C-alpha cells in the first residue's frame, strides 16, 4: 500500500494521515492487519462524514445496497486550521497522483536514492518519485540542479540565451504533464545593462509524467516489466565574464511496470 510505504515521508513533512471509508470497524481492522497498516483507517459507517464533505458518490443509486454510501475517491491536504491546500480528485478512477509525487510538488523531501549525472558547469542528481508505476499513475521526475561556483543558468522564458529546459522524449503510453520550475532571481549584467532571470543557487525541476490508462496503452504495456523514459536537459551556463557553449545533456530513468491495480484503496 503506497500510503503506508510513504508514511515516514509524510510524517517527516509534518503531516498527519488518515483514510476514510464507509466500512465498519471490523472490516478496517481486518484490512489493516492484512496490509500492515499503522495509520488510522476511519470508519464512516452510514457515510455521514462523506456526506458532510459533499463527497457522496451520486453515480451509485440508493437501491445499490452494497455500494451506496461510497465517496468520490480523492485526497485532501489540509493545513492545521483545516483549510484545503491541495486536493486530488481524478476524473477516471484508475488515474491518480502518487502521494510521493504530491509531497514533492508541495515542496517536501522524499527518502529517495538519487542518481548523479555528470554535466559541464552543473551538479545534477535525479530520481523518480515512484519506482513502480501502473497505467494511470501520475508521478514525477525530480532533477536537482546545482550551478557550480560563480555560474548561473537561464530560466525558462529567457531569450538571447539558451534557457533551462527538460525535454522528455515522446513515447506511446507516457503522457508528459506540467513541469515545475522555482522562481528565478534577477541577474544584472552591467556591461550590457541587462536584467535577466537566472538560477545561481541549487534548484529543483519537478516534471510530472503520467502512464496512459487507455485500453490500448494498457494492452501495449501489459507484457513489459520496465519502462525507460529518456530526456534531454538543455541549458547555457555563464559566469560574470564568460558564456559557455549551450549544453544538451541526455538522461534517462527506468521504472518497474505493474498491471493496472483495479483494487481500491491504494
Amino acid at each position, binding site marked *: 500500500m503506497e500510503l503506508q510505504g510513504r508514511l515516514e515521508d*509524510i*510524517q517527516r*513533512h*509534518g*503531516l*498527519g*494521515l*488518515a*483514510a*476514510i*471509508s*464507509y*466500512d465498519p*470497524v471490523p*472490516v*478496517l*481492522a*481486518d*484490512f*489493516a492487519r492484512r496490509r500492515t*497498516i499503522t495509520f*488510522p*483507517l*476511519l*470508519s*464512516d459507517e452510514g457515510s455521514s*462524514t*462523506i456526506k*458532510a*464533505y*459533499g*463527497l457522496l458518490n*451520486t*453515480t451509485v443509486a440508493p437501491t445499490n445496497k*452494497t*455500494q451506496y454510501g*461510497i*465517496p*468520490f*475517491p*480523492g*485526497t*485532501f*491536504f*489540509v*493545513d*492545521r*486550521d*483545516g*483549510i*484545503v*491546500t*491541495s*486536493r486530488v*480528485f*481524478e*476524473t477516471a478512477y484508475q488515474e491518480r497522483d502518487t*502521494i510521493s509525487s504530491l509531497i514533492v510538488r508541495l515542496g517536501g523531501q522524499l527518502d529517495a536514492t538519487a542518481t548523479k549525472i555528470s554535466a559541464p558547469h552543473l551538479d545534477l542528481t535525479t530520481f523518480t518519485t515512484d519506482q513502480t508505476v501502473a497505467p494511470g499513475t501520475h508521478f514525477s521526475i525530480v532533477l536537482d540542479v546545482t550551478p557550480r561556483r560563480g555560474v548561473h543558468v537561464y530560466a525558462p522564458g529567457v531569450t538571447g540565451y539558451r534557457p533551462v529546459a527538460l525535454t522528455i522524449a515522446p513515447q506511446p503510453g507516457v503522457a508528459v504533464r506540467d513541469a515545475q520550475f522555482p522562481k528565478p532571481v534577477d541577474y544584472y549584467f552591467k556591461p550590457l545593462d541587462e536584467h535577466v532571470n537566472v538560477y545561481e543557487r541549487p534548484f529543483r525541476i519537478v516534471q510530472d509524467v503520467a502512464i496512459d490508462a487507455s485500453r490500448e496503452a494498457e494492452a501495449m504495456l501489459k507484457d513489459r516489466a520496465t519502462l525507460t523514459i529518456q530526456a534531454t536537459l538543455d541549458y547555457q551556463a555563464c559566469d560574470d565574464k564568460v558564456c559557455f557553449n549551450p549544453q544538451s545533456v541526455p538522461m534517462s530513468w527506468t521504472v518497474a511496470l505493474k498491471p493496472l491495480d483495479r483494487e*481500491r*484503496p491504494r
Partner: protein
Amino acid sequence: MNTSGVLACLATAIWATGQSPAVDPRTVGPQVGTKVPSFTLTDQAGRSRTLASLMGPKGAILVFFRSADW
C-alpha cells in the same frame, strides 16, 4: 431573457443533472482555500479520532477511498 425564462433554464439544467450521473469529481467537496468539516470517527483499533487529533505540525492528508471490502 425574463425571470421566468431564467427559471425555466435553471429547471432544465437541474433536470438534466438529475438525469445524467456524470459528475466531474474535481468539482465535488471542499475546494482549495476552504475549510473542511470536522469529524469524530472510529479507527481500526476502535479509538475515537477527530480531525484535530490527526493533525501533524503542518496539517494532515485525508484520503477518502471506496472500500476496504471490495
